[in-house]
């Protein structure tokens, strides 16, 4: 315990010496402060203390309650843009050096020669990285809590759910950062590889989503053709040529459907192995929507989107409503277990590799 505390204090001093930590903490507060500057009234949006106001037929307190307005800002700008992107990047930059500094600085020998195990030393250092990220997110959540409470007149403790979620998402990246930092002893290398890894996660996520859409649409198209064919075959008056055409179309659609599925299988496998940062963030969003009723009176937006017509992936037969229903069902089938547990398994594996390497290395 004494040793763990000493390592935490040492990490605090290290981060304190790096001004970046305070910078990103300060920025968090500034971002929330900017949220608080925007007010909403019956005519539109106003910006305090400048007295600017923008009249708007959509954004006024008759359409959106101040409560929903702030929650919306917290969710879309605060969680998605700030915590999901900028704050994570800043946290990475300020904590990426912890492991490389541990293994390259001239005092690692003296630390290893103390009565504490190497695994504990390494994992404690790793934890300090997460702890300071947690601190940053907590400050952000607290500031948001106050702004929404004071300006929106509603106290919403579930905003603090952002803390565990963001820390877990951050840890997916940080384990890679720690492993690379250990191998290369270089903060820059750790940062670059982690950034590439992050892009890879985004790429796999977008790619999988797109291919998933295509696969679902293609399956629906197959069923639609099947139904049409069955109807044509049942109808004695139907031109046999139409039946033949449909049969042919069904065959070609089935083969393209098989391709969609096999491609999707591989992409999905890759995604299952990798941590799911975006899904985890989406889960936070869903949680906040449920717990904090963040969408408020805005539930209509989902339906609004459905009204736009047109083809889906070139499949004229697929009905939009059915497609969206299938997508929802698919999304729900990827539950908490799939998103969090597979991600944590990835993190566990990376961390174990790093710990074993750290324990076996000569310094």
């Amino acid at each position, binding site marked *: 315990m*004494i*040793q763990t*505390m*000493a*390592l935490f*204090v*040492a990490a605090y*001093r*290290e981060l*304190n*010496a790096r001004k970046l930590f305070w910078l990103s903490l300060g920025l968090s507060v500034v971002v929330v402060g900017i949220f608080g500057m925007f007010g909403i009234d019956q005519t539109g949006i106003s910006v305090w203390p400048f007295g600017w106001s923008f009249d708007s037929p959509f954004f006024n307190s008759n359409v959106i309650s101040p409560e929903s307005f702030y929650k919306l800002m917290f969710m879309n700008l605060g969680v998605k843009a700030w915590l999901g992107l900028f704050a994570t990047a800043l946290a990475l930059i300020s904590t990426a050096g912890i492991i490389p500094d541990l293994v390259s*600085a*001239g*005092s*690692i*020998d*003296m*630390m*290893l*020669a*103390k*009565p*504490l*195990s190497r695994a504990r030393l390494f994992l404690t250092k790793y934890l300090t990285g997460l702890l300071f990220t947690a601190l940053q997110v907590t400050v952000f959540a607290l500031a948001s809590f106050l702004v929404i409470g004071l300006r929106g007149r509603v106290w919403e403790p579930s905003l603090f759910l952002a803390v565990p979620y963001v820390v877990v998402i951050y840890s997916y990246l940080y384990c890679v950062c720690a492993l690379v930092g250990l191998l290369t002893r270089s903060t820059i290398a750790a940062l670059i590889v982690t950034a590439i890894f992050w892009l890879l996660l985004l790429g796999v996520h977008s790619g999988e989503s797109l291919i998933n859409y295509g696969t679902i649409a293609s399956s629906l198209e197959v069923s639609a053709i099947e139904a049409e064919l069955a109807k044509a075959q049942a109808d004695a008056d139907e031109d046999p040529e139409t039946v033949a055409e449909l049969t042919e179309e069904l065959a070609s659609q089935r083969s393209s459907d098989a391709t969609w599925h096999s491609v999707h299988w591989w992409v999905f496998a890759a995604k299952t192995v990798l941590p799911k940062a975006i899904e985890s963030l989406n889960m936070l969003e869903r949680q906040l929507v449920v717990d904090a009723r963040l969408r408020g009176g805005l539930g209509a937006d989902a339906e609004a989107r459905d009204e736009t017509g047109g083809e889906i992936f070139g499949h004229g037969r697929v009905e939009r409503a059915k497609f969206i229903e299938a997508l929802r069902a698919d999304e729900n089938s990827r539950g908490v277990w799939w998103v969090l547990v597979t991600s944590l398994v990835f993190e566990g594996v990376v961390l174990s590799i790093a710990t074993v390497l750290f324990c*076996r290395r*000569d*310094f």
Partner: protein
Amino acid sequence: MALAVDLSDVEKTYGGRVRALRGVSVQVNEGEVFGFLGPNGAGKSTLVKIMMTVARATKLSGTILGAPVGHKPTLARVGYLPEHHRFPKYLTGRQVVEFFGALAGMERAARKRRASHLLDMVRMEDWADRKVGTYSKGMQQRVGLAASLVNDPRLIVLDEPTDGVDPVGRREIRDMLIQMRNEGRTVFLNSHLLSEVEQVCNRVAILVQGRVVAQGTIDELTAASRRFEIAIEGEPPAWWEPLGRVTRERAPGQGLDAAPSASRLVLLRTEANGGQASIDRLRAEGRTILFAATVRESLEDLFIRAVADPTTGVVSAPGATIGGVS
């Protein structure tokens, strides 16, 4: 007497190629200052790192303070100052010492007290609360010494502690070593600075290319070289020839270019009184005796002899053997 360090047959091969240690056995008695000598690259630091669990031996058996090497709890009673250590620049000297105290599991009050005491002892009291980044090499070394002593160790292992320290600082460190021994600690001192080892060490081992070539007290190791020397003015007497060696030399105070006017008669006999008869005879012949004493090899001579190849006399190149088996 109990052994503080008892290692036998330690081998270390780095990366499958660099044979840094090739079967090293070292015994250190409790309460002594042990000098571990060797040229650069002999493997001194490697052995110490293995003892301190910083590096892993390829092959190893042995104990430290009675526990097998690698037993972490024992390290609470061991102090270690690595070579080339650098402490974080943003910490003060006091914070460094207290941090290592905490890592050794010391309670807050105890480590604070001990840190103050040690920082006074290494004469860093005025600088203790300034950042390490502002320290000179010698000051960092002093803080390092304090940090390695913070847990009140039974055994303290120092790797080149006087590296980069000025002569005054060296003398102070030497005095600290003696003080540590007087306090009953065992000191394991890695060094290639022979004069300081000679002055403080009870026993030494000499490591050359990963092998211990000599181990024992300085007395034991130099006993074979004990001899009686008589320096006289003028030519050596003819009757000396069967008794021993002769070297011609310049009398004291003569310039470097003067012709030798004195002789040094070396009697290769270990008994001190072996030369008394010769002195009587020389005096009877009326010769002036400039000097007469029992002389033994210095540690430096011993070291050079150990490092040099016994047949060719060539001093081996620094560094471990790379590849192959030799």
